[in-house]
């Protein structure tokens, strides 16, 4: 489905974010990218949907190679859920979800925000699926809680019937209970629509529950790739250590 073929990315200041990574993500898989901050998770994500171009190597969706020409075609087939929510704060929940359809909407309809009944029904269905209620429909996105906003973002990512959904730290700003239920919503929606999900997380616990496949990154290289059950205790410990080291650095900074 989604293929990375010996992809590297070097930023202008010389840091190697991704170093010669080859990955093949199969259709319908729920992949979790694990790793501490700066391991290159977000860069890998942004390369998959064409926001960041690889310095070398090729990204393919199906048979299409991601390049300038195909970029919009590929972006239409990919749904994206972002780290800092990235809903439009002053737009209603309904229109935030419908905004996911924008690439396929005629210009004049987009100007007056005219969406067909079917499109709106589909948005409602998705919102219902991720656990939103009718009373939220015309609220501004900024009036919702963080968890609700993330649910709306999930609905938006799925509305264009994407083959792949990329979720960049979907639960980074949520508390544990909320995180679990948001991840559950994401998983149900993905299974229901038969979409492939690539999700970055940095909590190993969630990854073990949620993923079909775990890909752990460290310093731009793949460090583990496989089913959660295949994680032996040694690797798990190493992952825990990575997670711990990250937490301690954050605490040090805070202190």
């Amino acid at each position, binding site marked *: 489905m989604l293929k990375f073929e010996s992809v590297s990315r070097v930023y202008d200041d010389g840091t190697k974010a991704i170093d010669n990574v080859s990955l093949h993500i199969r259709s319908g898989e729920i992949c979790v990218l694990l790793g501490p901050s700066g391991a290159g998770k977000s860069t890998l994500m942004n390369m998959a949907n064409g926001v960041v171009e690889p310095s070398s190597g090729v990204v393919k969706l199906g048979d299409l190679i991601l390049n300038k020409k195909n970029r919009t075609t590929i972006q239409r087939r990919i749904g994206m859920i972002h780290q800092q929510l990235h809903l*439009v704060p*002053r737009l209603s929940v309904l229109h935030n979800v419908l905004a996911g359809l924008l690439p396929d909407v005629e210009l004049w309809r987009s100007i007056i925000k005219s969406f067909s009944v079917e499109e709106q029904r589909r948005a409602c269905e998705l919102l219902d699926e991720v656990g939103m209620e009718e009373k939220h429909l015309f609220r501004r996105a900024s009036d919702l809680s963080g968890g609700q906003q993330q649910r709306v973002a999930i609905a938006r990512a799925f509305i264009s019937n994407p083959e792949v959904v990329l979720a960049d730290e979907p639960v980074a700003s949520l508390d544990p209970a909320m995180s679990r239920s948001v991840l559950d919503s994401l998983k149900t929606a993905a299974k229901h629509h038969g979409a492939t999900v690539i999700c970055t997380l940095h909590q190993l616990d969630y990854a073990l529950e949620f993923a079909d496949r775990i890909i752990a990154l460290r310093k731009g290289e793949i460090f583990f790739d496989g089913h959660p059950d295949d994680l032996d205790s040694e690797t798990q410990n190493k992952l825990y250590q990575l997670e711990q080291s990250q937490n301690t650095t954050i605490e040090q900074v805070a202190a």
Partner: protein
Amino acid sequence: MKLDIEQTKPWQQWELHHAVTPKSLIILFILFIAFSFSAHNTELDKAAVETSKAVLSIVGIGDSQVLDGALRFTSKAFPMQISERTAISRLDDFDRNALPLFSYLEMGEEREYDALTEIWTIEKSEYLVEPLGYLWKVTVKMWETIEMGFWGTVICIMISLPLSVLASRNYTPHRFVYSFVRGWLSLHRAMPELIVALILVLMYGFGPIAGVLALAIHTSGVLGKFFADEIENAPPGPQLALKSSGASAFKVLRYAVFPHVYPAWIAYVQYIFERNIRTATILGIVGAGGIGMELKGRWDVFDYSHVATILLGIFITVVLLEYFSQKLRKHAL
């Protein structure tokens, strides 16, 4: 925690901050001298003297030119001119049996001065008196002024909306277009309404067209810059999110930028509208329509009681405007 940086001085000897230094005193002194010259240039000293004289004159000490001027205006300004009095010989379609509502006829004298023979002739004549005639005339003129402000604002938005997109760094098609449009907007801003109106009066003749266009040209420079700055400062996250789903730049602008900038834009437009009406009241002075034309005409023939009515009209309009726009602002945000 101590870092291993070699200190050249112990901390007791570090240079500290001084609030007053000889340097700051010298700068203050130089500024004082410079401002004194400038104030003398603008006759501020004279203003102080004359104002003091006026105050003394009120209490009864000495004469004051300032007070005389003020008295000359106020003594003639009140009572204000409310009614309108016209000699019936000057009315084209006068019909004795169908007088306008509330009006009546009155006998009076008409004085005429013949400059050649230097003789005053006094003729008895009948006058048509409309009790609220002049007030009505001022109201109509004032309404025209408000309409000028309104259409000036509408045309201003029509000019500045597309230009602002071209003049925002993140949506301009090319850097060259960006600089060009920014320059163009500053040019609009740099042309004061009165001067634009003067030129437009030459082109379109006397009347509100020149006024409306002058307002639109000047304020589109202001509004365009404000709009563009708002677009540039919109949060990039939502824009990136929509862009990465493959939406075109225009749609991103519509869905991720416009909802964000819309409240600020409304506030700017409101400000421009208020300002346009205030400016429209004086544009008539150069013949560009509105109440200013009436004001200028009355002022030039020393009809200060008429002027007083006009000033009252302007004052009431501005106050009402402020009141309603305040209400609207609360409603919109």
